[in-house]
C-alpha cells in the first residue's frame, strides 16, 4: 500500500451544543480521486473548513505527505499545497478571467504598477496548459456558470497544489460540461497529487473517482472501492437505509383536463414561441441543457420577467399576468432554483416564511396579523410536510436545504395554489431528503395540484414526469409522453440547435435557414472563442 498523501486521523470538532465531527478519518492516496459523500449536515463543510484552516480541530491531526499539517488560514493552506474550490464561487464578477486567477498576486512593474500584459500572458499560458478555452480578458460576470467554474479551477490549479478539494463542482453543470471538468481532473492527477471530490451525484463518482469515503452525522462510516461498490451500497451507507433508484412516474393517463395553456410565449432575451399545456394533476417535466430557457419560461409565466408575445389560458379563460402578484392571485406559485435568493426570508422564522404569500388572504383582520391562526397553520403544515424543525419559531437559515424547500412548498400550499412551478426542486438537497421531496411532489399531484418541474437531472425528470417538455435555445423542441421519454430521446431534443443547424430546423418543422428573433441572442457565450 502506498503512503497516504493526505491523512485525517481521529479529527474532532465541536461547537456549542453540537458535535460537528467526531473521530473523523480519511486518507487520500497520491494519484487518486477520492470521492467524499454524505448528506447535508454530515460534516463535509466542517471538514473543509478545518482543512483550509478556518477552524482548528479540537482533537486529532492532519498529515500532508507524512508531515503534520496545521494551516492557519486559507492562504496558508494554499501555500502548504492544498487548494479548495468551494461550492459558492469566490470570484469578482467585474474583473476579467486573468485578474480573477491572479488576484492578490498580480504581476507588477517597478513594484507599483500592474503589469497587465504579463498578467494576461501568464493567464493565457495557464489556460492553454489546462486546455481551457477561456479568454483571459473576458469579464467573469458575463461568463456562463460552467465557465465561471472553470475559472475557479484554473485559479486553484495556478497555485500548483498537491491536493485539490472540490465541493460539489458539478452542481450547476450539464453533462458535456461535466465531461470537460472530469478531463481536467484526470489531467491534474499525477503520481504525486490527489483530488478530494465532494458530490451527491453517484453517476459522476462512478466515472471519476477511484474510492469513495462515506461520512454520516459527523462520523466516518466506510471507504469503498468505486469499481466494486454499487450505487445502492454507497447510498445506503450515506443514509443508513436502502433507497429505490429505479422508480417510474405514477398514475400516467391520457384523459387529464388541460388546466393551463401557454401559447407562443416570446421574450426579448431568449424565448421563442414557447407553447405547452399543463394538465390537471400531472407532473410536467421541463428538460434541457443549461441556458435552454426553462427557468425563463417559469419567470415569464409568473410575470417576473417581461413578455413580448404570447397568451396564457387558465381553466379556459385567457389571463394577463403582469407580475408575480397577479400569478399568486391566480394560484400559480413559482419555487425558484435559488431558494436562498428568491424563495426564503432567511433571517425570518419558519412561520413568517410559510405565511408570507397568503398573509393578507388568510391571516389578517383589519390590517392586523392574526398570529394565533398563523402559528396554527404553520404548525399544521410543518406536520403535514414533515418539516424537520424544532418549532415554527426557528429561523429559516438554520434549516437544512431539504427542509427549507419544504418551507417554500408550504408557503404556496397555504396560498392554495393549483399550479406549482418547481425549478430544480432538489438542487443542493441530499439524497435522503430528495426522496422525501419526490414523494411530496407525487402526493401533491395526486391531490390534483398541477406541477411544472424544471430539472437538470434526467433521472429525476424520468422518474417523476407524466410528460416531458424538452427545450433548446429558447424553444420547445418536443413534448414527450412518459413512454417516449428516455435519457436518449430527451438528450436528442435538448441538443437540437435550429438556429445554427439547418437540419435541426427542418426536423422541427421550421423553415431552414430563416432568421428568427432569437438568432442574434443565444445564451451567453462570452469567454468562449
Amino acid at each position, binding site marked *: 500500500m502506498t503512503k497516504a498523501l493526505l491523512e485525517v486521523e481521529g479529527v474532532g470538532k465541536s*461547537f*456549542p*451544543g*453540537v*458535535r*460537528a465531527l467526531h473521530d473523523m478519518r480519511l486518507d487520500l492516496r497520491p494519484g487518486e480521486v477520492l470521492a467524499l459523500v454524505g448528506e447535508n*449536515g454530515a460534516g463535509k463543510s466542517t471538514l473543509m473548513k478545518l482543512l483550509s484552516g478556518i477552524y482548528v480541530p479540537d482533537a486529532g491531526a492532519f498529515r500532508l505527505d507524512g508531515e503534520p499539517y496545521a494551516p492557519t488560514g486559507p492562504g496558508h493552506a494554499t501555500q502548504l499545497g492544498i487548494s479548495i474550490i468551494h461550492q459558492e464561487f469566490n470570484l469578482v464578477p467585474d474583473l476579467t478571467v486573468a485578474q480573477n486567477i491572479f488576484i492578490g498576486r498580480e504581476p507588477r512593474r517597478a513594484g507599483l504598477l500592474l503589469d497587465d500584459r504579463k498578467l494576461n500572458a501568464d493567464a493565457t499560458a495557464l489556460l492553454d496548459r489546462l486546455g481551457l478555452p477561456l479568454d483571459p480578458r473576458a469579464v467573469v460576470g458575463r461568463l456562463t456558470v460552467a465557465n465561471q467554474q472553470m475559472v475557479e479551477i484554473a485559479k486553484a490549479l495556478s497555485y500548483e497544489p498537491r491536493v485539490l478539494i472540490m465541493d460539489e463542482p458539478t452542481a450547476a453543470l450539464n453533462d458535456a460540461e461535466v465531461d470537460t471538468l472530469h478531463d481536467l481532473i484526470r489531467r491534474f492527477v499525477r503520481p504525486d497529487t490527489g483530488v478530494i471530490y465532494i458530490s451527491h451525484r453517484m453517476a459522476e463518482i462512478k466515472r471519476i473517482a477511484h474510492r469513495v469515503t462515506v461520512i*454520516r*452525522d*459527523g462520523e466516518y462510516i466506510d471507504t469503498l472501492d468505486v469499481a466494486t461498490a454499487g450505487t445502492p451500497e454507497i447510498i445506503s451507507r450515506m*443514509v*443508513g*437505509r436502502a433507497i429505490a433508484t429505479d422508480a417510474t412516474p405514477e398514475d400516467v393517463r391520457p384523459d387529464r383536463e388541460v388546466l393551463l395553456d401557454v401559447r407562443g410565449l416570446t421574450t426579448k432575451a431568449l424565448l421563442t414561441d414557447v407553447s405547452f399545456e399543463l394538465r390537471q394533476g400531472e407532473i410536467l417535466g421541463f428538460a434541457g441543457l443549461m441556458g435552454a430557457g426553462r427557468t425563463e419560461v417559469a419567470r415569464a409565466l*409568473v410575470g*417576473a420577467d417581461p413578455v413580448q408575445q404570447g397568451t396564457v389560458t387558465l381553466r379556459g379563460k385567457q389571463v394577463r399576468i403582469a*407580475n*408575480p*402578484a397577479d*400569478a*399568486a*392571485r391566480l394560484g400559480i*406559485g*413559482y419555487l*425558484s432554483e435559488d431558494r436562498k*435568493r*428568491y*424563495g*426564503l*426570508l*432567511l*433571517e*425570518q*422564522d419558519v412561520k*413568517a416564511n410559510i405565511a*408570507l*404569500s397568503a*398573509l*393578507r388572504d388568510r391571516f*389578517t383582520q383589519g*390590517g*392586523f*396579523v392574526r*398570529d394565533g391562526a398563523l402559528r396554527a397553520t404553520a404548525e399544521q403544515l410543518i406536520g403535514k410536510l414533515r418539516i*424537520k*424543525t*424544532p*418549532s415554527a*419559531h*426557528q*429561523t429559516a437559515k*438554520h*434549516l*437544512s436545504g431539504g427542509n427549507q424547500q419544504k418551507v417554500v412548498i408550504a*408557503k404556496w400550499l397555504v*396560498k392554495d395554489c393549483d399550479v406549482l412551478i418547481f425549478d430544480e426542486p432538489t438542487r443542493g438537497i441530499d439524497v*435522503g431528503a430528495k426522496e422525501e421531496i419526490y414523494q411530496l411532489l407525487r402526493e401533491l399531484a395526486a391531490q390534483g395540484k398541477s406541477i411544472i418541474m424544471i430539472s437538470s437531472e434526467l433521472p429525476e425528470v424520468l422518474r417523476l414526469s407524466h410528460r416531458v417538455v424538452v427545450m433548446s435555445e429558447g424553444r420547445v423542441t418536443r413534448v414527450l409522453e412518459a413512454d417516449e421519454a428516455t435519457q436518449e430521446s430527451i438528450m436528442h431534443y435538448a441538443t437540437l440547435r435550429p438556429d445554427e443547424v439547418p437540419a435541426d430546423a427542418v426536423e422541427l418543422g421550421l423553415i431552414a435557414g430563416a432568421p428568427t428573433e432569437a438568432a442574434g441572442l443565444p445564451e451567453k457565450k462570452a469567454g468562449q472563442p
Partner: protein
Amino acid sequence: MTTAKAPAFTRQEENGKGAALKSRLQQLLAFASLIVIYTYFAFASEFFFTYDNFISILFSTVVIGTLAIGTTFVVITSGIDLSIGTGMALCAVMAGVFMVNAGLPLAVGVPLTILFGGLMGLINGFNIAVLGIPPFIATLAMMLVAEGLALVVSDSTPIYFNEVDGYTDLSTGRLIPGVDIPNAVLILVVVAIIAGVLLTKSVLGRYTYSIGSNEEATGLSGINVRRWKIAIYVFAGLFTGLAGVLISARLGSAQPATGMGYELQAIAAVVIGGTSLSGGKGSIIGTLIGALIISVLNNGLQIMSIPQEWQNVILGCVILVAVYTDQVRKELQ
C-alpha cells in the same frame, strides 16, 4: 433517522429558543449603555440629575425620536431617508402657510401638515419603487429640494405662530393636570406605541420586515413590493410631517433653515437602537433608546460645557462603538 440527526437538532433547538432572547439582549445592551451614560453624567455634573433636566432631555428627544421612528420602517426595508431633516423644516414652513398665511384652524392645519409630510414620502416612494432610483440618491435629491423649497416658500424668513390659538400648547402644554410632562413627550410616547404595534402586528410591518429580509423573494411570493414600498415611505413621511409640527410648535415659529443635520441624528438613533442598515431587523423600542442616548449625550456634554465640535466627535465614536458591538454580538452567535 431522527436519532441519527440528534446532534444537529440540539443546535437548532438552542437557536430557536435563543433567538427571541438574543434580540432582547440587543435592546437590553442599548438600554444598559443608556443607564451607564446617564449615571456617568449624574455624577459628573450637579446640574444634570434634576427633574427639570430630565424633562428637558425628553423634550429634546421628541423631534429626533419622531423622525427616527418613521426612519426605522424605511431602514428595515434596507432603505434610507436623508430627506427627513430638511423635509421637517419644509413641513414646519407649510404649517405656517396653512395656519398663519391661510388662517386655517389648528384642527385642519395640523393634519394637513402631517399629510404634506406623507406627500413627500409618496414622491420618495415613487422615485424609489417605481423609477428604481436608489433610496440614498432619491432622498438626497429630496433633501435638497425640501431645503430649497422651505426657503422659497417662507421667503427665507421665519414664520411665527403667535396668532394661531393653542399651537405652541401642542408641544409645550401640559395635557395631564398636575403631571409635569410636556405634551410633545406624550405625543412621542403615543406615536411610538402606535408605530411599535404596526411594526410588529400589522400587515404593513410584516411586509416591511419581509422586503428588508429579501425583496426578490417577497416579490416572487406574490406581494406587490412596489406598492408596499411606496406605502412605507408615505408612512415614514407622516412622521416627518409630525416632527415639523412638533418642532415649530415648540419654537413658536417655523425656521426654514434649521432642518439639515436632523436626518443624520435620526439615522444614528435608528442604528444605535440595533436596526440593521442591511434590512430585515429592527425595533421601535431600540430606536427610542437610541434617540434617548443621543439626547442624553447632547444634553450631558452641553451641561459639562464641552464645545459643540467635541460633542459631534463623541457622538461619532458612540455610533461606531454601538454598531461594532452589535456586529461582534452577531458573530458570537
